[in-house]
């Protein structure tokens, strides 16, 4: 690469990362350039690590960095070397590579597969390379049994660890699928320009994925982030608590203490906070459209439960039921939580869609005593009432009894009030916040949770 080419590559990479919300200053870019000079271009993986070390500031940024790096510093240019292959030959070689767990060979095969079978269209403006098409055609998942047999045949896998084998092979196949996706992106970028592909075709960091559009894998990733996030928030709450207890001087105790110094208040006595912690009530819409959001938030609150003297959680679709016990036992099986709640609690009456009015009314009526002057209530949901009565008096009633009521809405603010959304009506009675992704949620929770 020429010096100009290199500089251009680097600024392109930095621009794409910035477009994904990574804050990268000039200082880091200069460091990255020095890293490139010190490392050279002979080993692409070292270059990758060097640029990551200089440009990134946190672990969560890495899943965005890697695919963007792959576009700006691609493994190769153009189509792979070698003769075009047929499907069976490719599957044979893939089975062998999976058996040997040979990542480099799998990468080579991914390139061949995309080249041979991933192309579509026949005009320069509309054609491209599709990983989906490649994988549909190659169907690597159907190699599982074959790979298992050949690993067993090689021996060395008898005994206890044999039970791990299937999952391990699945992970290898999953890795191959990712290689195919990366290769398809690389080929498309060659045609359409990498700047555009880097912005459009690279998924955002998990904490910026919209709850409403998150896929299964992304939700699983979010669930894994619950414990670390909870720890982070717990320290933030502790800091807020410390700050709140600092500074307020207990006048009475200061004067009493001053008797020994002849009435001169030498040592101010700081007021100790009452040790009682606040109470929390969660009302969660768990209907299909917003369940990803509710499940995540419930897990997060459960992980934070020792910050509060009491946490009660209620779930609803169009009927409402308490699910606190399910949640207490739910931490051991987070991915099953949503299903269990929907199986074991009574959440629907004679139809299956959300009805905020009925559910909120049921809460006010049956569980009114769950809310008192020390309680902060969070309502989670999109406020889409399916055209039924929003039951504003019930919300007003809850708001009067509680210390605070917050409503977290996973919909974009601009959507509030469109169609059957009663969001603006509710927002007049209680403080409503847009909460579209984990990043917004953790900021809100850190700020709004009572201490």
């Amino acid at each position, binding site marked *: 690469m020429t010096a100009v080419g290199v500089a251009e590559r680097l600024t392109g990479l930095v621009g794409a990362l910035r477009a994904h919300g990574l804050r990268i200053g000039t200082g880091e870019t200069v460091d990255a350039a020095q*890293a490139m000079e*010190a490392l050279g271009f002979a080993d692409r993986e*070292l270059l990758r690590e060097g640029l990551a070390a200089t440009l990134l500031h946190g*672990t969560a940024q890495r899943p965005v960095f890697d695919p963007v790096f792959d576009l700006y510093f691609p493994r190769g240019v153009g189509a792979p070397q070698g003769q075009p292959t047929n499907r069976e030959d490719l599957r044979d070689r893939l089975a062998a590579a999976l058996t040997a767990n040979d990542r480099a060979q799998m990468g080579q095969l991914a390139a061949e597969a995309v080249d041979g079978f991933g192309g579509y269209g026949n005009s320069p403006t509309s054609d491209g390379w599709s990983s989906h098409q490649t994988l549909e055609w190659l169907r690597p998942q159907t190699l599982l049994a074959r790979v298992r047999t050949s690993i067993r045949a090689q021996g060395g896998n008898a*005994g*206890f660890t044999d039970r791990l084998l299937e999952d391990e092979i699945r992970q290898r196949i999953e890795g191959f699928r990712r290689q195919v996706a990366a290769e398809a992106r690389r080929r498309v970028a060659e045609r359409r320009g990498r700047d555009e592909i880097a912005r459009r075709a690279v998924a955002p960091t998990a904490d910026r994925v919209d709850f409403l559009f998150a896929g299964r894998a992304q939700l699983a990733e979010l669930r894994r982030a619950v414990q670390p996030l909870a*720890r*982070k928030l717990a320290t933030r709450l502790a800091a807020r608590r410390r700050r709140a207890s600092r500074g307020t001087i207990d006048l009475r105790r200061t004067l009493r203490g001053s008797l020994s110094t002849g009435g001169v208040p030498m040592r101010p006595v700081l007021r100790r906070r009452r040790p009682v912690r606040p109470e929390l009530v969660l009302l969660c819409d768990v209907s299909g459209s917003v369940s990803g959001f509710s499940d995540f938030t419930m897990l997060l609150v459960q992980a934070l439960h020792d910050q509060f003297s009491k946490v009660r959680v209620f779930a609803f679709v169009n009927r409402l039921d308490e699910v606190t016990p399910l949640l207490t036992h739910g*931490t*051991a099986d987070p991915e099953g939580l949503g299903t269990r709640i929907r199986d074991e609690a009574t959440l629907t009456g004679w139809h299956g869609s959300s009805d905020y009015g009925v559910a909120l009314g049921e809460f006010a009526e049956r569980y009114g005593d769950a809310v008192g002057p020390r309680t902060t209530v969070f309502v989670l949901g999109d406020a889409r009432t399916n055209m039924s009565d929003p039951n504003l008096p019930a919300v007003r009633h809850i708001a009067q009894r509680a210390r605070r009521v917050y409503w977290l809405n996973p919909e974009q603010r601009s959507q509030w009030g469109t169609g059957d959304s009663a969001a603006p009506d509710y927002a007049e009675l209680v403080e409503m916040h847009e909460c579209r992704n984990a990043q917004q949620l953790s900021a809100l929770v850190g700020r709004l949770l009572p201490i």
Partner: protein
Amino acid sequence: MFRSVDEVAARLAEAGYLASPAVATTVFLADRLGKPLLVEGPAGVGKTELAKAVAEVAGARLVRLQCYEGVDESRALYEWNHAKQLLRISAGRDESWDETRTDIFSEEFLLPRPLLTAIRGDDPKVLLIDETDKADVEVEGLLLEILSDFQVTVPELGTITATRRPFVVLTSNASRELSEALRRRCLFLHIGFPDEELERRIVRLKVPGLSQALAESVVRVVGALREMELRKVPSVAETIDWARTLLALGADTLDETVVRDTLGVLLKHQDDILRAAAKLDLDAV
């Protein structure tokens, strides 16, 4: 200090640390660019160990500041030796108060703490600021100052500037988000769980008597546990502990009984143990 990334890896290995390409590359760059290295990652993946190994390789003294909630300037930077000052004052030589004061605020009465120690003197040093996330935000401000200028101002003595900058390693478990400003000063390195091959080599290095075959099984089981949704998945430290336990028990292969009986070495929560036992098809624990 190093000519190439390979040399970093080779010399760290001699010091008993097996570096992944990411670790070796970042250590190489931290040395080349003269920047502090911020190492983040789960507990027990060798963050602290890395700093120790770098010190050994560099023939440098390791100066360690262990952070905890409540650590302050007098623990991190310096403190006056009040007891000694009082003794000196009451010894009351024949001199004016001004003379006494000049004397008791001299180097002799200064107790240097790690941050000051690390920038004084000409010998090579590695400054390890361990578990930075445990310290309060105020200490972060202090670190920021020192890592920017490598100088410390002691009002009574003047400014002390490093004649030789230490190699700085900060570690964090990310229990608290470190400030953006501090991150910007540093090269960033995430150490995650090693890949299978590397972990096997670590286990065999740290637990010499273990057979190749058992090391492989151990690492595979640990890998499977890390794929489960557990409260706390086992780290490298636990893998090593488990391997040691198996060796002590004289086990030469894994079977249901031995795994079931020793799962507690890998997993610390009872519900994790139950869950893992079920997923691994062990009979009731």
